[in-house]
């Protein structure tokens, strides 16, 4: 009987995204996970398992039948996971294993921040310095919590009580940061200044 030539398995790899951070300890959360084969193979049905640091499975599922937009062949799924019971920094291990032998398995590690349930609502209103025009699309950080302003220049973040570093940034504007203490529902108004643009266009 002729010796069968060994075929090296295709090396798949993973992407994990859209885990809303931080997650609230003990609640459910979602993330997206995708796997890709450099040969563009169809990975529909590939099994995804998510484990916490102790090795306990906290979620998983199987990849769907269509690649993620604009990718060559990243088969993906939105997966339900159980957030850690205690607050703090955690790491989940995301494991992919294809249903057939042509493809190997892959593992990726994703960081997870779990926090206590929020107590207070912080409303941030952002406008442009000088003009006073409300600014949409301003990225905000309140400690580890993040949000972006809406068309009215407003953003809402729910946080546990405490002292936070508040940071606001939008493309084309200078970064603004300040320290704020939250002990009740509160509204914070910020004015951000336009950053200086180059004094000449990019010659073309």
């Amino acid at each position: 009987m002729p010796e069968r030539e060994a075929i090296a398995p295709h090396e798949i790899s993973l992407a994990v995204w859209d885990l809303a951070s931080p997650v609230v300890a003990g609640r459910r959360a979602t993330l997206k996970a995708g796997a890709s084969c450099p040969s563009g193979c169809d990975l529909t049905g590939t099994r995804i398992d998510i484990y916490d640091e102790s090795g306990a499975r906290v979620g998983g599922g199987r990849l769907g039948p269509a690649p993620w937009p604009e990718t060559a062949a990243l088969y993906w799924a939105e997966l339900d996971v159980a957030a850690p019971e205690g607050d703090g920094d955690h790491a989940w291990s995301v494991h992919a294993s294809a249903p057939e032998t042509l493809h190997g398995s892959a593992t990726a590690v994703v960081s997870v921040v779990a926090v206590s349930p929020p107590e207070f609502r912080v409303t941030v209103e952002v406008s442009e310095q000088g003009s006073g025009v409300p600014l949409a699309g301003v990225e905000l950080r309140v400690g580890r919590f993040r949000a972006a302003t809406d068309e009215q220049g407003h953003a809402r973040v729910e946080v546990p009580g405490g002292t936070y570093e508040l940071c606001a940034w939008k493309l084309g504007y200078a970064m603004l940061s300040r320290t704020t203490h939250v002990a009740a529902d509160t509204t914070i108004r910020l004015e951000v200044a336009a950053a200086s643009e180059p004094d000449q266009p990019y010659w073309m």
Partner: protein
Amino acid sequence: MNRRTFLKDGALGVGATALAGVAVQDGDVAAQRVTRWDRAADVVIAGAGASGLCAAIAARDLGASVIVVEQNHDIGGHAMVSGGRIPLGGGTRLQKKFGVVDSADQVYLDHTNPGNLELRFSDRDLVRAWAEENAATFDFLLDNGVRFDEVMPTLVNGGTVPRLFRTLPYSDNLKETINGSPGSGLVRALEKSARAKGVEILLRHNLTRIVRDNPTSGRVQGMTATFENKVLNVEARRGVIIATGGFTSNVAFRRMFDPRLTEEYQVAGEPWSRQTADGEMLAMAIGAALWGTSNVASERGRTVTKTRHIGARYGYENLRWNPGSPMFPLAGGSGLTVRSYQDVICVNQFGARFWNELDDTYGFLNACLGRHDDGRQNGKLNGGGPIWAIFDAGAVAREKWDPRPPNVDPNGWFFSADTIPELARRIANPYQVQPMPPRNLEQTVGTFNAHVDAGKDPDFGRPGLMFKVEKPPFHAAWATPILHDALAGLRINGRGEVLDMRGQVIAGLYGAGESAGGFALHGLPRVTVFGRIAGREAARART
């Protein structure tokens, strides 16, 4: 028979070494001999850029016959694709038109301020001569057809008086302007004027030798150039002007000043024109000195710059290649203009972050040029190797990028993939001498994303972390620093004469533009003024 006639007639039965008593190799002397001149002019200029064209017109205006040899297939040099910024003062006609009061003294004081970190290492003899000729040179440009954007001038270079005017692009024809840059309005207007006045320009001629009476003594007689492998000996009855445009494209030469500037660093202005150091090296071969060499590594100005248009080979901040440019097939891509480095992380060839990407100082550039290895000395010993900007679909959306050709150059300068490990495997570039380890890049991105979660970058102190690199597809874009200014060059005096290493004038040899050193001023104001000075002085030279 004087010595020049003797040489010219080819009556060299005796070696020039013996005549001059200079101890050099016989072979060198033989190489130095020119027994027949193919062409002759009063003033012969190497380089048809902003400096050489000013020199040509200035010499011609005094009645000298002028031949200009140019390496490129067209005139203009780097100035053609420049921003056309010409901050000259001292009371120019346009300054007066806008009611700006200025003087040569004030120009001198502004450019010799010891607090000016960029200019304080300059030779003040040169700055004084330059200041005296500011206004006359600006008006000379106007008189030769250069058109400026006539708006109130602005302050630049630490000056106390508004001086910055910009030229207007020469036309809307990219074949004429090459990239639509304002600098085309300077050099095309000067070319037109020079040709109308009778200057002869020989394109595609490479300067190969400066001919001097003796290898390191005597007067400069002319130059040798090659055109289509044929040698052309050009006699200069009054002077040779070196206006070849600097050395930035010459890796060996630029490393004399900063050994870190190895081959992976690309050059602003390329691929249109190259700064090959020909003028400097050939002048040094006949004894010329360099000047102001510390300016190259003073960490001021634009010797090394942070790349602004990533994902293409040439990403200098003020030069974005237009897909309609006749040079675009060589440029390869326009690049994605980074409005904020908040949207990317920068990694080295091993896939590791190395600095706060938001830093726009020389701190970032030094980190790029620093030692990058994998901890086992597997990296380059000199130069930092390629720097790649890594980003995701979220960054593409925020920056409103279209990461496809012609914006990016997938032929070695831009890569995309579904996952981070796959992205690392795809990176292949002439300067990426070993594959980027996929695990390294995956770990780097994972660590950075954890820092974003935490809101702090303990590794490099990047402030205000906002965005993870997590959403597919992923991209790697060439973001290696790009070089610009040659802030050192041949030693000249205030008359544009080149000096030797003993400080003596080399009779008949002049220098101007980026190939002249000693004045660390960026760009066109320096090269236009000294071009005009050199042309004038060469035309006046007594032989």
